[in-house]
């Protein structure tokens, strides 16, 4: 069993190194690398940080500082789907807070948490650029407008499948 885990870790290190190396000649490569790692592997693990740092010739502390500064970067695996509910002013004006409360109640999690079955990570976001058709919700990058509680339930039904 331990060998399996070690193998998995080695495979991950290899993949991280590939992703970082492929982008190291970009100007300002770190954030594109972090996006690519998260896209490919779902999150940025603490163990990934020194690997990226080594490829870029940075200190692990510098990379860690960047990972933790930006809200997008997840340091633990998320759910199979991610639902983000806009809580900014224009959506507040049309009931976004009540919608957010409804979603938290429905899923039994707070913003930033994942349901215990691993199906959905729920989060808040401040503006999705859909301020004339609020409340706005984004599910795995796909934008939804005029989302009522019933519509939100339907969206959750689609991702739970």
């Amino acid at each position, binding site marked *: 069993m331990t060998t399996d885990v070690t193998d998995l870790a080695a495979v991950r290190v290899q993949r991280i190194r590939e992703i970082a190396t492929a982008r190291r000649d*970009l*100007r*300002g*490569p*770190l*954030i*594109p690398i*972090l*996006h690519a790692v998260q896209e490919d592997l779902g999150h940025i693990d603490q163990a990934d940080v020194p690997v990226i740092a080594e490829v870029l010739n940075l200190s692990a502390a*510098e990379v860690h*500082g*960047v990972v933790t*500064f*930006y*809200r*997008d*970067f997840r340091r633990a695996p998320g759910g199979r789907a991610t639902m983000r509910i806009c809580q*900014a*002013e*224009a*959506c*507040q*004006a*049309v009931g976004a807070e009540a919608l957010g409360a409804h979603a938290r109640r429905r899923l039994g999690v707070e913003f930033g948490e994942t349901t215990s079955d691993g199906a959905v990570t729920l989060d808040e*976001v*401040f*503006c*999705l*650029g*859909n*301020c*004339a*058709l*609020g409340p*706005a919700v*984004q599910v795995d*990058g*796909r*934008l*939804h*407008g*005029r989302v009522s509680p019933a519509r939100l339930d339907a969206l959750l039904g689609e991702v739970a499948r």
Partner: protein
Amino acid sequence: MRGMEAGGVSAGKRRVYVPRDSAARSVGADAVAERIAAAGAEVVRTGSRGMLWLEPLVEVETPAGRVGYGPVAPEDVDGLVAAGLLDGQGESIGVVEDLPWMRRQQRVTFTRVGIVDPRSPEDYEAHGGLAGLRTALRMSPADVVEEVVTSGLRGRGGAGFPTGIKWRTVLGADADIKFVCCNADEGDSGTFADRMLIEGDPFTLIEGMTIAAHAVGASEGYVYLRSEYPDAVETLTEAIEAARARGWLGERILGSDLTFDLHVRVGAGAYICGEETSMLESLEGKRGQVRAKPPIPALEGLFGRPTVVNNVLSLASVPAILADGAEAYAALGVGRSRGTSVFQLGGNIARGGIVETAFGITLGELVDDLGGGTASGRPARAVQVGGPLGAYLPVEKFDLPMDYEAFAAAGAMLGHGGIVVFDDTVDMAAMARFAFSFCAEESCGKCTPCRVGAVRGVETIDRIRTGQEREKNLVLLEDLCELMTDGSLCAMGGLTPMPVRSAVRHFGEDFAK
């Protein structure tokens, strides 16, 4: 074939336009497009006209112009087609260009948005694209800069700094390499014009940045585009590739001596990265912490090199200025606010969307006449103009003209032109609290007045709202606002007091409940 393409011949496939703008998609435009294609039409996906309350808005090409139908739900399509939609018959809203909402506008920056296929360079050129760049390439860099100065164009990202003057500084700086960076972070709530321009007419931004590169002597450009906009990232990335393939980017652009290439960089969910120096830090791969100014980015910007940093709309306005002349642009507007601005109506509004018009239109004309008042049908009570750092204004201020100086004089700001409407159910003390909590959440942490002040602000408003020593805490609140205004390194901490103070000033009763 040609006659059939023009749509006038009943035997041919009818051309129908359905937006692929993400706001239109958010209310079902993809499914509508599929059903219309299934009915036998040729579907062209465009940007959105900006009449977002009508989305999905379907337009059918007819000899009289494009006839509109909207909002169209996917399940409406078959019925509409049976009633003659493909011939422009049935229950339409008429010719789109003739709608009062469109007629009231002066579209300069958004002239092609909603009309062209954003993924088609051919369509772009057929609708006047590249005319500005061609003109610019015949001019010396200094003359291009002076043309932009003469136009009176001011930065649309919020601060309203004259774009040409910024470019003059970069042109005059000596360096091995210079950069043009487009700020497409568009983090302000209530703003979506940058997104709509990029999704609806990305080549205009590319052209504007290329003109900027020629004007200042830059060879590399970056668009810092927020991760919340995946559709915009995709559209712009594809457009850049298409532009490169056609020699609109790269070496010897359009046969000239200009070499310029462009890259998209995706943000990572930090509001402060819209502040230009924080954006530059982020582009360099660092934490988005604000830099002290001076040095200004025009002299020491990206990687310490002279850098133009402009908002999407500033850069996207440049092609029209070069194509039609600075005087034509400067002829529009009022006072020192020249040209047009792309206003965005959002929140609790009946007809939300984009209104591009000359500066000087009043707030009330936008909210009531174009916007049709609230969506809830209740009386409007407050509007926030200019994003989370902008002031809350009562309806009594609806006669204010949209003009940088008039807004500043009223203790408010135009910012990026977003207008968010609230009805009479709004609790303004809660909105003031939100302004502080947003600042506390999004502060880059570099300076104390902002980092600590925002947290104290939340606590102070909580005490006011629960009636603890209200008078004393209102005084404390005002002191705190003064401290943040005067002592913050950037406008994040420096302007958070604006929504707070305006809420107290205009809606004091909500702090006494």
